[in-house]
């Protein structure tokens, strides 16, 4: 099934939820969902026999950097407002079709329901999204940093306004 058919199926399945297809000039299109309706949509595409997306390929977290840029006290730029977005890429081993779902969460306290009970592979992807972007996943059993050291308190590295700290436990970081 192409993404259009899946979109129409979801559309008439959930009338009240605002979902639409977005596409840039190049590349694939994907379905945009608001964070609070995300859990329903994910459950639907997993359990609906005609869709049956049982293989979560990848969860990617992106910092859209669309807030307004401000200068903080010692001069480096800070992005206020704006959104962080999450892309879920799924595949169905039986129906052999793919889909990409996007949700965007506001930057200040990003929180998204976890998808661990649907696909076990979401566990490490979500921990990495939390570690790199700071997006909290409610319901995740042990949401800890996975790649960075456990006591890293200098912020979330992959955000566009991340400033590399000068020292980490008396180890000088910059060259």
């Amino acid at each position, binding site marked *: 099934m192409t993404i259009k058919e899946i979109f129409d199926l979801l559309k008439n399945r959930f009338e009240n939820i605002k979902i639409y297809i977005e596409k*840039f*000039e*190049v*590349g*694939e299109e*994907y379905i945009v969902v608001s964070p609070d309706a995300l859990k329903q949509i994910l459950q639907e595409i997993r359990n609906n026999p005609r869709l049956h997306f*049982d*293989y*979560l*390929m*990848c969860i*990617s*977290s*992106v*910092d859209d950097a669309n807030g307004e840029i401000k200068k903080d006290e010692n001069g480096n730029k800070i992005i206020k407002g704006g959104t962080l977005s999450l*892309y879920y*890429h799924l595949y169905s*081993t039986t129906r*052999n079709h793919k889909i*990409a779902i996007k949700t965007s969460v506001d930057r200040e306290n990003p929180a998204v329901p976890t998808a661990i009970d649907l*696909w*076990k*592979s979401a*566990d*490490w992807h979500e921990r990495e999204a939390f570690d*790199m972007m700071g997006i909290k996943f409610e319901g995740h059993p042990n949401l800890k*940093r*996975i*790649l*960075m*050291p*456990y*006591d890293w308190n200098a912020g979330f*590295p*992959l955000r566009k306004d*991340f400033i590399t700290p000068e020292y980490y*436990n*008396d*180890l000088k970081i910059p060259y």
Partner: protein
Amino acid sequence: MMNEAYNLEYKSLKKEGDSEIMILNMGPQHPSTHGVLRLELKVNGEIIEEVIPHIGYLHRCFEKHAEACNYQQVIPYVDRMDYLSSMYNDFGYAIAVEKLLGIEIPERVEYIRIIMGEFQRIASHLVAIGTFGLDVGSFTPFLYCFRDREKILTLFEKTCGARLLYNYIWPGGVSHDLYPEFKNDALNFLKEFKRNLKDLEILLVENKIFIERTAGIGVLPENIAINYAASGPMIRGSGIPYDIRKIEPYGIYDRFEFNIPVGEGMMGKKGDCWDRFYVRYLEILESIKIIEQALDSLPDGNVFEKLPKKIKPKKGIVYSRVESPRGELGFFIISDGSDKPFRIKVRAPSFVNLSILPEIAKGCFIADLVAILGSIDIVLGEVDR
């Protein structure tokens, strides 16, 4: 000070209240963790109650670098992610960028990429089989595998000048054309390699102790494999023919006929360590078939004609996936019209395959855990990115 991080990390080790359970730390420096991976084992005697993998000891900030370099400068960093099959990383990255650019590739480049990719798959599987034999205790197969791998590396070195990290496949073409007598060098190697595979078969595949050590251990049932999104020899070992070269053919894989080896549980149960090992061994034979077909129908032509000087793709998002020797390697690239990618997220197969370890290593011996880890075949550069 420095040892706060150390104490914080080992806080869980300090509270060994329950006398029955001993917390053993297979630390970042261990002969059989294939690099810097720390496994925290809760051990009751020799039986493992629980495994907690701690990764991140080789996190080299790939995604941060990808945002700071333009599309051609990212290739050396893509090489250094899965340093055992860096040719295939370039291949995956090149296909993703070409989807963004929407350009056509000359025929000869397509064939060269398939040949180089399959040679890299053989080299990577040889290392996987060699270190798997090392974990189970036999030293000699490791050196036989490395001897054959050296021959492949000389082929690579003669074409693109590097032994391990090649920066060879660029978006839109290749950096160097094949040197004139590449074809019969490769054919000689393949002929001799088939003979060498025989003594590898005697040493490992039919070795009674090896079979006893690996059959029926670390069984990965099908539903857990799909639920954990395993890929590559991990999922094919459990009997699911999930190979992206067949499901979603990229490049010109649909022109060659080869079959996908799948684990049938010949020696033990389906989806155990031996099956994963045997699937890798059969995949080497398949790759030889592909290379032979590609070599004798290798067209000639100019390799550099479609190579773009400046890569400035239009705004767009692409997720392309390739079948790297370790599994499904996905590149998620967002381009915002400038010559630097806005964001690159890599779906590393070892990262996902490693997350299955706590699931299948419950209740086995320490010696089995080493065998299971060897059969998963992870590369820490890719796990930590």
